[in-house]
Every structure is written in structure tokens, then in C-alpha cells.
């Protein structure tokens, strides 16, 4: 990797496409019908195209794997409804997540929201990737994904060329790769250096910060958008912080919760495009989206956030 000019890297925070406006954004707990107007929230650009997407997305690991339980499927639809009404767009899933893809398809059908979603999924097989993608399309009830990623680099030698081919044929808009829990960093870096990726997905939060050292600067340098998984460490981070008062400086950021403080910490990083917290609670989905409004922390405040959380957990 070429030496990254840190000053240019940090100045990029302004150029990467932050645009915030607070226009009356208090969506509350949305149930049922979708709002037609979309609240103004912070959006960040996908470097390869300049397309601006809302700076908080929605993950589906565990939370959307509810099988055929219709009551729980409807609860998921309420989460998606609250997410869209609060201005969200990106929903992420994987063939690994059990029934989550099918449940997302159910939610989008029920809400009539296929045109609202920035659809993000993965290919996760050492076998026939095209077969799996075809099955994934059926489950989402969609013909074209915005983004498909090679999940945890599995079968990347076959699956990455497949995704690029689909993109060239106009069947896919963006190509990416994912890892989680800080696995296979060296392999991921090699792929980021050698391939023209649009997106990369990594684990990042105020406690797991290893990606700050090299991977995030590399993504910035290479013009690769970054999706952040496990922003709350699968919920355990929020469990550990439960009951702890927010630090005084949080008032400057207009945050209501630790979840919003953590998301603001992530969004404020110039390389980060979109953290994807998962939830089963519509109110939390709306609350997470509100993190993409108002002030974002500067470098000094980000360090304070990490330090405070590091002490408390």
C-alpha cells in the first residue's frame, strides 16, 4: 500500500459527502404504512460512483431469522417500516442467515417497499455461486441487487469474478467482499489492493478498532466504500453499557443513547460509509437512524468516546 497522506485522508471527511439536515426528523415508532416523504439525514458517498446513501443501514443477522412464524415476521416488517420511515435504505443479509433473506422479502412485499431499499446481500459458498445468487433473488423477490459481496472471502477465486461479470452485464450495481470479527485481514487487504472493489464490509466499533490502523485508510486510498458490521458487538456492547450515564460531551452531539453515540463514532470516520446495526425493535431501528442526524464528533471527541467506553466495559 502506498503511504497514505493522513492530512488528505482526514480532510476527506468534508469531501466524502457528509450532508446533514435536521428537518423535522422524529419518526417515532412507525407501524404499518410507509411515509412517502423521506427525512433528510446524513448521507455518505459510494466513492466509485458518487451515489449518496443514508449513513446508517439495517443488518439482519439473527434478528430476521424467524422462520415461518408469522407474528415474528410481522414484527420484522414493523422494524423495516420504522427504518424506512426514518430515512434508512440499506438492508444487508446473507445466505448464511437462515430464513433472514426470505423474511426480508416478506417485509418488502408487505410494505410495497422494493423501490425504497438499497439491497445488499452476499454469496457464501464454495460451490455454484450463480445458483446461490439465483436462490437469493427468489427469497428477496427481486431481480437485481444493488450490492453483492463475497461473504468472509469464501470461494473468492470463483465468486469475485462471477460478481464482476454480473456487474458488467448490468445485473448488479456494486461488488464487495466481507469479513467479520477481524478475521483474515491480510487476505482482505490483498483483495482490496488487487481488485476494483466498490464495497468492503468489516467489523468496527469503539472497542474493536484494529481496522483504523491500516484497513480503513487503505479503503479511503483505494476509493472503496466501507460497511461496518457488529457495531454493537452483536448487542453485547450495549448490554455492558446499560445503566451507565452518557458522558457529558454527548449532549453536544444531541444523542439519546449509547447506541447513537457509538453509531456517530462510526459515521464520523471519513472512510466509513454505513454501519448496519441489527434490531428486533422498531423503536430501536428509528433511534439508530437518528444517529445519522445532527452533529458528528470530531477526532478528539471520537477518541473520548472510545476511551469512555473502554473504561466502562
Amino acid at each position, binding site marked *: 500500500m502506498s503511504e497514505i497522506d493522513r492530512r488528505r485522508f482526514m480532510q476527506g471527511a468534508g469531501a466524502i459527502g457528509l450532508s446533514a439536515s435536521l428537518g423535522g426528523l422524529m419518526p417515532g415508532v412507525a407501524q404499518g404504512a410507509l411515509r412517502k416523504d423521506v427525512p433528510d439525514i446524513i448521507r455518505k458517498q459510494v466513492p466509485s460512483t458518487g451515489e449518496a446513501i443514508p449513513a446508517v443501514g439495517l443488518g439482519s443477522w439473527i434478528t430476521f431469522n*424467524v*422462520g415461518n412464524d408469522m407474528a415474528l415476521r410481522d414484527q420484522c416488517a414493523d422494524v423495516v417500516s420504522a427504518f424506512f420511515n426514518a430515512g434508512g435504505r440499506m438492508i444487508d443479509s446473507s445466505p448464511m442467515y*437462515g*430464513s*433472514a433473506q426470505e423474511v426480508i422479502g416478506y417485509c418488502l412485499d408487505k410494505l410495497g417497499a422494493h423501490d425504497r431499499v438499497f439491497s445488499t446481500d452476499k454469496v457464501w459458498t*464454495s460451490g455454484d455461486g450463480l445458483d446461490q445468487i439465483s436462490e437469493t433473488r427468489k427469497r428477496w423477490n427481486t431481480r437485481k441487487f444493488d450490492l453483492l459481496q463475497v461473504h468472509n472471502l469464501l470461494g473468492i477465486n470463483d465468486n469475485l469474478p462471477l460478481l464482476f461479470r454480473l456487474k458488467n452485464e448490468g445485473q448488479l450495481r456494486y461488488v464487495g467482499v466481507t469479513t467479520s470479527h477481524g478475521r*483474515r485481514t491480510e487476505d482482505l487487504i490483498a483483495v482490496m489492493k488487487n481488485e476494483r472493489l466498490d464495497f468492503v464490509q468489516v467489523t468496527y466499533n469503539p472497542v474493536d478498532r484494529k481496522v483504523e490502523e491500516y484497513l480503513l485508510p487503505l479503503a479511503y486510498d483505494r476509493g472503496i466504500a466501507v460497511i461496518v458490521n457488529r457495531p454493537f458487538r452483536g448487542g453485547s456492547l450495549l448490554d455492558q453499557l446499560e445503566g451507565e450515564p452518557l458522558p457529558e460531551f454527548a449532549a453536544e452531539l444531541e444523542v439519546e443513547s449509547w447506541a447513537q453515540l457509538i453509531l456517530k463514532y462510526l459515521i464520523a470516520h471519513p472512510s466509513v460509509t454505513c454501519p448496519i446495526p441489527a434490531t*428486533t425493535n422498531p423503536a430501536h431501528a428509528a433511534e439508530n437512524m437518528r444517529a445519522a442526524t445532527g452533529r458528528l464528533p470530531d477526532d478528539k471527541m471520537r477518541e473520548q468516546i472510545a476511551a469512555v467506553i473502554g473504561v466502562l466495559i
Partner: protein
Amino acid sequence: MTEWWDYGLADFLLFSPRVYYRLFETMNSVWWMAVLAAFVAGLVAAGMAMRHGHRGNRVILVLLSLIWAWASYGFVWQYYQPINWAVAYILPGFVIEVLLLLVFAARPLPLRFGWRGDLTSYVGAAIMVVAIVIYPFVGLLEGRDLIQAELFGSAADPTALGTLGFVLMARGTWRWLLLPVPLIWCAFAAATLWVMDQQIAYVMLIAVWLTIFSGWLDLKNGVTTRRLTKAELADPPPISD
């Protein structure tokens, strides 16, 4: 590049305890008659297995076969498989267990169930009691509703657990063939429950260990390999067998 062995156990937990226990609530509500019938069949089979006689051995095996068939299709396939894709790879084992139980029931000299008073009998009976009487209602202590009870005969975990007890209560050659599938399922279930932070996982692990230990004791004592004679089938063997 990443391969399958790079994953940790927690990576394969794809659902929450809330969703998992809702499976039993939904199944118990929708199929309550079948669930109750399977539970009663299990109780009858357990009662017969505890008796010391030669009648009913084939009936026990047929009842267990029906129970495994119902648990496979009703719970594992209809309810569990949609949230846990790994189950699809284990399901053929359930089919094998159903067939094996039927084969043992059809054998000229079927297995002989009965209390013998040895260590294996104690372990077998204890596991059966835990699986049928205690396991389904442990959830009540943890604040779950009765409707979410995992009943022997329908829910896979207590069914596999109880089957270990039945096999330990039996005598006859090749009976160990009935152990691998429930043992594998119990290990799989223990791993799932452990990742979900459910203490009941230890019960499954202890049962697996006790079954293997008892089986080894029987093998060491020549019990497993000794073929039952027609006379033994007609007359109860001595308690100290």
C-alpha cells in the same frame, strides 16, 4: 482464503433464544393433539421398558420409530430447519434412526427391554426420567410459559435424550447401532444451547458422556456382544445380569 474451519461455534448461531422457544410454542399450539399423543406414546413405551418381561419389546421399538418419524417431520423439518440450515444435513440421520428402530422391531430376536439393576439400568432409567418428566418443564423455572414446553416425542432434544435411555435399558446384539444418531443430535443440541447460553446444555453433555461410559462398561462386561437366547426371551434374565 477463508475456509469452513475458520468459523467459530458462535458464528453458526443464527437465531435468538426467543425465536427458538417460539418454535415449540407454535408447534404445541398448532399440533397439540399429535404432540400429546406422541408424549403419551413415550410414557407408555417408558413404562413398558421399565418392566422386566419379554412382552412388548417390539411395541416399544415401533412406538419409538413412530415418535422419531413425527419428531423428524413435525419439528425438525417443519419448524427447526427454516431457521437452522445445518439441520438439513442431520435430518437423513433421523430417517436412518426410524428405519433402524423398525428393523430391530422386525428382527426374529428383538431387543429386550427391562430393569436389570446394574449401572447401565440406573443410567438408562435416569436419562429416560429426565427426558420425559423433567426436561420439558425446565423452561418453567426460567420463566418460559408452559406452552413452550419441549415434550418428549415431538421436540428433538428430549426425544434424542430419552432414546439414549431406552437403548441403555435394552439388551441384545447390535443395539449400539441405535446410539450414534441420538448421540450426535445430543452433541449438536448441547453446542446450540451452550452458544445460546442455556444451562440445560450441560444435561445433554452429561447424558452423552454417561451413555458412552455405560456402553463401554457393557462392552467390557460382554453384555453388548452376547446374543439373547430364545430361553432368555421367554424367561426374564436374573437381576444381576
